[in-house]
């Protein structure tokens, strides 16, 4: 086992698959000479040359279109969207083409395309650069969607995605790139469609993925000190979703919450809860609640951003609620405090304004 960063594991997966299959190539913005905005493609140009590692103009629609067109002729493109936020410019290619060309052609065409896209919040990048779109991609038949939480899964899933004969949306989290984990020296892959129990527990199930996996594990750790043993399931693959593993767990714990970094409405959490209440209705004793991003565009300000994203405390608190322990309405409390401070601030500001005008009059 070697310990490496998430981005290094991704880099290694790309290298291995490119060595293994000459039909694999990579295109994207600043992935070659610049070595990738998040350095995931570092050194690939040097190893594989300009034929297989290409910088593109800033033309997202054409970039994915080239991926589709090349895949139609049997190549295995790996397309990088510098961040998922820019994939909004390529949605026609992804949804009207990648996901449907096979079906519309009656099975004649294959699209062995991998679209890598960093997403997520936490670096004060503001509303346009802090989004998550897993629920959008999950909604579309014909696409597969994966979202690894650890270097191990990142490497194994990326290799599976590249070998898959279908379009795979490969979501990475910008805050995970430098996180470390163990990665075997020897060749391995992680199958698409299998969830992974990252922590066993008997009292409650926390269902999550991507960056929220680590945050949930931290919460579970804290809860253990209160005698609550939480099972943490990392979905890893969002479409197809491994519902069986979730049901299994619920059969044991009878209680669950879902943690997602994305907005709530029509999100991945809603899908998980809907499947469970339909398939495991009799197993659970309390409603399954979701801990999500606040339902607002992401603000720039550090304190606001931090308070919008799910954290250890919110998760632990949500678990306490579903297992019937004492739990608080954190948000209400924060709002009360905030309104307090706000009033004071606005008074101050008025006074200053007043003084300013007085001075002006005096000078006049």
């Amino acid at each position, binding site marked *: 086992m070697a310990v490496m960063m998430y981005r290094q594991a991704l880099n290694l997966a790309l290298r291995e698959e490119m060595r293994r299959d000459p039909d694999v190539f990579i295109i994207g913005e600043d992935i070659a000479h610049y070595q990738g905005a998040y350095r995931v493609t570092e050194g690939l140009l040097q190893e594989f040359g300009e*034929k297989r590692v290409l910088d593109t103009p800033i033309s997202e629609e054409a970039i994915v279109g080239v991926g589709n067109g090349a895949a139609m002729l049997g190549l295995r493109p790996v397309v990088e969207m510098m961040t998922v936020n820019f994939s909004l410019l390529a949605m026609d290619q992804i949804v009207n083409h990648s996901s449907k060309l096979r079906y519309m052609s*009656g099975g004649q065409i294959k699209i062995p395309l991998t679209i890598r896209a960093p997403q997520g919040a936490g670096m004060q990048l503001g509303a346009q650069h802090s989004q998550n779109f897993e629920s959008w991609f999950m909604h579309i038949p014909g696409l597969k969607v994966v979202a690894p939480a650890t270097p191990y899964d990142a490497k194994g899933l990326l290799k599976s995605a590249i070998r898959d004969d279908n379009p795979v949306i490969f979501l990475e989290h910008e805050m995970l790139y430098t996180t470390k984990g163990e990665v075997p020296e020897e060749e391995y892959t992680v199958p698409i469609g299998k969830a992974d129990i990252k922590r066993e527990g008997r009292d409650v199930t926390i269902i999550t993925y991507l960056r929220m996996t680590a945050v949930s594990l931290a919460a579970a750790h804290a809860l253990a000190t209160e005698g609550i043993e939480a099972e943490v399931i990392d979905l890893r693959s969002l479409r197809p979703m491994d519902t069986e593993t979730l049901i299994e767990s619920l059969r044991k714990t009878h209680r669950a919450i879902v943690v997602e970094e994305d907005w709530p409405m029509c999100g991945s959490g809603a899908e998980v809860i809907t499947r469970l209440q339909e398939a495991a209705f009799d197993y659970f004793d309390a409603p399954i609640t979701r801990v999500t991003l606040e339902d607002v565009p992401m603000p720039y300000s550090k304190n606001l951003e931090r308070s919008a994203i799910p954290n250890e405390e919110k998760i632990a608190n949500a678990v306490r609620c579903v297992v019937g322990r004492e739990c608080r309405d954190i948000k209400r409390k924060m709002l009360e405090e905030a309104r307090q401070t706000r009033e004071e601030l606005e008074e101050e500001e008025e006074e200053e304004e007043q003084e300013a005008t007085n001075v002006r009059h005096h000078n006049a």
Partner: protein
Amino acid sequence: MDKSELIEMYRQMVLIRKFEERAGELYKAGKIGGFLHLYIGQEAVAVGFISSLKPDDYVISAYREHGQALTKGIEPRRVMAELYGKRTGVSRGKGGSMHMFDVERHFMGGDGIVGSGMPLATGMGFAINYRETDQVCLCFFGDGAVNEGAFHESLNLASLWNLPVLYVCENNFYGMGTAVNRASSIPELFRRAQCYDLEVESIDGMDLLTVKEAAERGIRLVRRDKRPRFIEAVTYRYRGHSIADPGTYRTKEEIQEWEKRDPIPQFANYLLKEDLATQDDLDSIDAEITEIIDDAVSYAEESHEPTFDELFENVYA
């Protein structure tokens, strides 16, 4: 060009014309669903260009693609069966009029999204270079597609990366009901392709021999130079945008003017004048084509619709 080639091209144009006329009737008779965009009037473009390709060259078009599909060699039976939504259709009944695919024949489909075939063609051009073959990709689209971002991004990338793609804009003067001069800041569309450092030209798309000559040259140069080119083929659609089209945006007179330049009679006269064919030859071609269409229709009629389980097939490979 030898005589048989010329006759074959005539045959192809008649095939398209009669196929489309019949499809129009069958649509009104309720045999065909969805949208139906007929190619009537534009036959010389598909025939002139596609007849100049090698069999393993690629073609991609938009939703008005029956003509190109037939010319690339797909059996009329399987195109008609597709219009009928039968499992014997070229796309097994899943695509319909806008989504004819025949991968074996390197016909990479229709596409229902205006302009979106261009990035796909660009990607195919990329794959051709990657594989280091000497194929070319022929990409058909309409005048309306010129105003989509996809046009811009595709031409820039194809030129920047030296991709062997021939972009053919079929300017039939209307995008649905919108005249080209009400949609494009420059109505001469070849000029819209002049800021990507690639060769552009505009040709009379109603005269088969003109098209043929430009196509041969264009395809040869794309293949030789591994550089994209852009050709505007000025043509006209005699029928509505789709069968639903009220047609209020243009005058009968305008249509009649263009009918004087109908590519099929125009080419027929040439063949007769040059003693390349007799009226009997042409009549027997017409008769033969009519039989082919009749056969295609009965094939489609008799074919079975897809079975319910097929609904769930081909979503994933």
